[in-house]
């Protein structure tokens, strides 16, 4: 231990103060940042979607404007006029020809991988379902969205959920393809017979959101709409209580669920 202290002093004694401060900040800052990000954990894909969408649109706009300006400049300076009757293209040397492949490839590849990395992170948010979720079954059909709550309560075309609880839909279809699209939550996923797909979203504030069908399903595809109604938790509880009473009053038996091939049902059960 003494030996280590000796070494430490010897090692750093002659460093100037600002070097040490910079070193400490360099070591501590990432820790602080990661600690901060832990407390405000972004697990709402909708917010992440807006952010990444914005970033990608800004990126492609910059690239596009750059290419367009260069092209416009070349077109303007290369217009045919006296003294410029025939093109005078640059003859590339072999090294130049290879360079014009290798350098753009690396530039494009780095943009691609950077975009892919960001896209992958957001994708993980989309597939990482929070543990405190509520799971609701959805059966789509021509032309309705039929929701079944964990306690057996059923609704049609109206998905009523409490604010503050992440909602997972386990989806299947009784006839053809449909796609449960909630534009406000930036999420959709097809439902189909024979497989169970899922999506989740995080309703934070009370309000109403449109649900549209986004996969062509026939004559009334354009009319196959529903609503997500987000209620304050106490209002939701009151509504649910009423529904449960109604459910108990009816002697309707729930038909046994058909066994269906699942599409990786365990993924969603993963802890966030």
């Amino acid at each position, binding site marked *: 231990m003494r030996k280590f202290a000796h070494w430490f002093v010897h090692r750093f004694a002659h460093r100037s103060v600002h070097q040490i401060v910079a070193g400490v900040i360099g070591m501590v800052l990432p820790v602080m940042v990661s600690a901060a990000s832990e407390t405000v954990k972004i697990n709402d894909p909708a917010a992440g*979607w807006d952010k*990444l*969408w914005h970033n*990608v*649109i800004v990126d492609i*706009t910059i*690239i*596009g404007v750059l*290419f367009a300006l*260069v*092209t416009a400049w*070349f*077109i303007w300076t*290369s*217009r*045919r006029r006296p003294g410029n009757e*025939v*093109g*005078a*293209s640059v*003859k*590339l040397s072999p090294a130049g*020809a290879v360079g*014009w*492949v290798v350098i*753009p490839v690396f530039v*494009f*590849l780095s943009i*691609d991988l950077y*975009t*892919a990395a960001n*896209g992958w992170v*957001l*994708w993980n948010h*989309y597939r990482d379902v929070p543990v405190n979720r509520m799971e609701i079954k959805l059966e789509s059909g021509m032309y309705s969205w039929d929701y079944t709550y964990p306690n057996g309560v059923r609704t049609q075309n109206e998905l009523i959920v409490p604010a503050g609880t992440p909602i997972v839909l386990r989806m299947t279809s009784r006839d*053809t*393809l449909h*796609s449960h*699209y909630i*534009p406000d939550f930036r999420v*959709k*996923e*097809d439902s*189909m*017979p*024979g*497989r169970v797909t899922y999506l989740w979203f995080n309703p934070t504030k009370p309000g109403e959101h*449109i649900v*549209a069908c*986004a996969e*062509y399903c*026939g*004559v*009334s*595809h*354009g*009319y196959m*709409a529903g609503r997500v109604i987000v209620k304050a938790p106490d209002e939701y509880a009151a509504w649910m209580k009423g529904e449960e009473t109604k459910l108990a009053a009816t002697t309707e038996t729930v038909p046994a669920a058909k066994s269906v091939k699942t*599409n*990786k049902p365990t993924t969603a059960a993963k802890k966030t």
Partner: protein
Amino acid sequence: MNLKEWIFTTDHKRVGVLYLIGSMAAFAVAGIMAMLMRIELSTIGPTITANPTQYNVWLYTHGAVMILGFQIPALTGFFANYCIPLMIGAKDVAFPRVNALSVWLFYVGVILALLTFFVPDPPDIMWTGYPPYSTITTGNTALYTFTVLILGFASIIGGVNFLTTVAYMRAPGVTLNKLNIFVWCTLGAFVLQLVFVPVLGTAVTLISMDKYLGTHFFDPANGGDVLTYQNLFWFYSHPAVYVIFLPFIGVVYEVIAAHGKNMVFNYKMVVYGGVGGIVALSGVVWVHHLYVSGMADWLRIGQMITTLMISIPVGLMMIGLIGTLYRSSIAFTTPMLYALGVVFLFLIGGLTGIPLALPALTIGVSDTYYVVGHFHYVMAVAGTFAIFAGVYHWFPKVTGKMYSEFWGKLGFWITFVGVNIVFWIMMDIGVKGMPRRYYDYPHFPQFEAAHQWMTVGAAILGVGFFIAVLNWIMGAKNGKPAGDNPWGSPSLEWSTVSPPPHGNWPTPPSVAEDWHPYGFRKD
């Protein structure tokens, strides 16, 4: 010039012209469908039809005919037939009778597609024909299956023919590194057709078997799987995008080099990096059409990376185009305007595809008007502009006459304005949530004004295309003689008389040691 001579022709040029006439007819029909849909969508609620199925049939016809009846036949039928033998200095294609069979099959396919308007229950299954809907609808799925099979077969035998022709029938001195970029691009497209069309043929055959013969390939109740069809379909139909993209960018290269009188920039980069790269990657990106279809997560992520990597060969081809413009000598003729239009509009179309490469962003905009706007910029706008650029460019060769530059340019500018109104607005409301394939949108009333603007834009672009086609017809009838080589191009197709006789050259062409299709400058 009698009809019988045309029908039974084995001359590659006449076969090409037949392809052009057929595909332009298909373009007109599919364009009218688009116009009807735009009018229908201009107000919420019924506008010109109260029957959503009628709208769905228009939409099916628009998609299927534009892709299978117009773009692929115009590019790999007309341009490939007309230009490839001339560009490589051949008298004809390797198998002229097979070529004639191919155009007959194409006409049968187009007629089948047009039967949509006469059968009692026309197909309403979109050009994708996804089951289970395509197997449970009352619409005529068989018509779709046979249209696809016949057009696909026409394309395959064309592919065999052209690969053989380029391999064996080049004039002495036309080496592989002296082929026109268009020839390389079209070869790439035909390789893709040969590899992938059989998969599409299988897919569409299986849905008809499911529907009419009682098989259960896509019926989960009996052990089938609906996702299989989507995989098979897009395993072909994504490469089909490159079957369209490659020849059209090849046409743009020809036009920009000829009207800019310039050597193509970094030829080998364009051929090996661009064409080669696209052919190599095209078969491993189809899952980006299935990002919200319930595919396994690892496939979505894996193909996100391959999809993004498509930007590399496509980017190299764009660099080649822009590099060809550098220090060129640009004459702003009508074909050049269309070709320059492609450069800018393809930039928009290509770059707006980057968000769609990410499954995480696609989950928000998949199946919305954003996607529709994006692929219309890529295919409908860039692709069609390239076809128009090419037809104008080779018009003097095909007819021996000149079109009117005034009407040509007027048509271009009108169309240019129109497409941007339609497809820019389309992408915008798509991001805001407008789903595609809707007959009506009572739940999205906020988009009604945008729909009306798009209808106006569609009318404008329709006028522009109409002027262009009229310009060709008038030019072919009454145009001034154009001379053999109006653009002053060293490319071989301009070395024969216009229009070229049967056999193309009175004596077989031979090229000098220092000849190059883009050797405009002799020094």
